[in-house]
């Protein structure tokens, strides 16, 4: 059943409302504009699609356009943060942190300045734009950098909260967003804390723990619901991939004895890897990985691509069954 403590959206499984995570970021940024005069927003010619537009219109003196220049986006922001501002930089994840990775490494992470990097249009769900624009490696790029915090919100509301939390966090932060509308899972009353795992679905006597990040959380919930009479499943939202809530990961894995990880990202280096690193050191259990297996994306509809790359509800169900069977043998 859905975890009552999380005050999740009513009817989120039967009749969900839809919004893209990037919208939540846009709302959060606007709130920050009011709250904190140090917050500035920088964009590389994508202010509408990254949802910076409302901030730009309300606070033009705090909006900085750098043009199609993602390396400059990161380094100008580094200077602003070094001076004392709290810069949010937004582009597509394929370009930032894709194209400007070294600038982020040297001038933001090593320099340890509080730039908030917002990578939109991450994952296959970008759809028709194709492989060039479908970032599937950004979590890996960001989580290997010391000082960096990595957040991948599950819905628009969580993205709003992550934006507010990122501004209050003293160091650099990466927030991963998606273009497509996805079900809204959480509410303004749902607790959110950087680095804190969140149980979304409780199994009565859990036999498999599903760790998920990003909007695929909804697919994981549907899979858990569909299997309810067959296998008892816990679904845990790991919105913060770094620092990972290691205690929670170990505890849920111990409780269930088998783990599935779910992410819209390369399996190499993403959430699955992060969870596997923790469990290999602390409590080894059978694991299955839902994610992209060393392939690039391609053009198509979001749902269609999720099916092709086995990120859909049925594939998650199959992975749960497989790992459950492995546990018993």
């Amino acid at each position, binding site marked *: 059943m859905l975890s009552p403590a999380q005050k999740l959206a009513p009817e989120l499984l039967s009749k969900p409302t839809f919004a893209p995570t990037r919208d939540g970021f846009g709302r959060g940024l606007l709130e920050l504009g009011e709250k904190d005069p140090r917050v500035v927003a920088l964009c590389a010619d994508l202010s509408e699609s990254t949802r910076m537009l409302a901030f730009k219109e309300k606070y033009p003196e705090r909006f900085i356009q750098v043009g199609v220049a993602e390396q400059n986006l990161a380094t100008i922001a580094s200077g602003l943060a*070094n001076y004392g501002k709290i810069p949010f930089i937004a582009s597509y994840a394929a370009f930032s942190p894709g194209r400007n990775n070294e600038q982020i490494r040297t001038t933001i992470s090593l320099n340890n300045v509080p730039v908030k990097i917002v990578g939109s249009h991450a994952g296959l769900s970008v759809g028709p734009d194709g492989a060039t624009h479908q970032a599937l490696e950004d979590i890996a790029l960001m989580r290997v950098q010391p000082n960096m915090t990595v957040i991948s919100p599950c819905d628009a509301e969580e993205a709003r909260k992550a934006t507010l939390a990122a501004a209050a966090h003293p160091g650099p932060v990466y927030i991963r967003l998606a273009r497509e509308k996805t079900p809204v899972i959480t509410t303004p009353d749902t607790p959110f804390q950087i680095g804190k795992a969140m149980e979304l679905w409780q199994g009565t006597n859990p036999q498999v723990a599903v760790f998920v990040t990003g909007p695929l959380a909804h697919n994981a919930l549907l899979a858990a619901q569909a299997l309810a009479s067959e296998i008892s499943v816990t679904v845990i939202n790991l919105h913060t991939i770094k620092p990972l809530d290691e205690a929670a990961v170990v505890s849920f894995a111990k409780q269930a004895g088998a783990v599935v990880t779910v992410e819209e990202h390369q399996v190499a280096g993403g959430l699955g890897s992060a969870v596997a690193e923790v469990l290999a050191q602390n409590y080894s259990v059978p694991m299955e990985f839902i994610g992209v297996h060393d392939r690039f994306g391609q053009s198509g509809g979001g749902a269609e691509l999720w099916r092709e790359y086995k990120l859909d509800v049925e594939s998650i169900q199959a992975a749960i069954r497989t790992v459950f069977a492995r546990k018993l043998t």
Partner: protein
Amino acid sequence: MVLTEGKVKELERTAEAIRETIIEMLMAAGSGHTAGPLGMADIFTAFYFHILRQDPKHPDWEERDRLFLSNGHIVPVRYAAMAHAGYFPIEECLTLRKFGSRLQGHPERMRLPGLESTSGPLGSGLSQAAGYAYGARMDNKNFRVYCIMSDGEQDAGNIWEAAMFAGNNKLSNLTAVMDRNNIQIDGMTEHVMPLENVRAKYEAFNWHVIEVDGHNMREFINAVEQAKAIFERPTLILAHTIPGKGIKEIEFDYTWHGKPPTQEEGQKFLKELRTLKGAITSEHE
């Protein structure tokens, strides 16, 4: 501050002392870059002993001028100048590149107060300085932001993104200094990747450009003063310098870009520098 003849002579002597320290540092480190630091000794001396509004005992002083170094590999000259200016003991210079030292091979802001930024990978310092200058202008701060960069790193696209940004935003509180020494690791800049008319390029992006002899104290300091009077535009001081300046046998030799002197070479270079200093002093007297 009035720049008397006596002051100029004093700055020149300080620059020679800094060159000696650079050679001693590189000998102790056993690795590092020689040509660039020697070539920029005069300009760093001008900054740390005349131009910068600073307090070496309080490197975080709010109102200080900010000096960014984009081509981090020439940082020995900065460390040496900072030590001579009183930021830290000169003896600490000999810890350059050693385990546990605050004087990392490439500068790290978080390790040594007063460095302003972390740099080394080329091409990204100008935009960091521009971002800093932009933020300071938003808050009406009146300190100056300086950025020293190399000519070799003009190959990097990020530099031109920054040049466009600073010109477009009329960052007149920003003064960049380009060390135009015509060398980079693989050879002469005009052989590796010609910069063509680099002055015209910056002017096309709305920069005010001043060309100077980077070893002429008075000329350089005057250019910095002139930049303060230029409104609505950032200024680039195109400083023509001699790589390896001060050691005759390595001047203009690009092979000295990225290597330190051996102990034997170092002793010879130190002797040459000390003799030269003697000559300047006796001439002055």
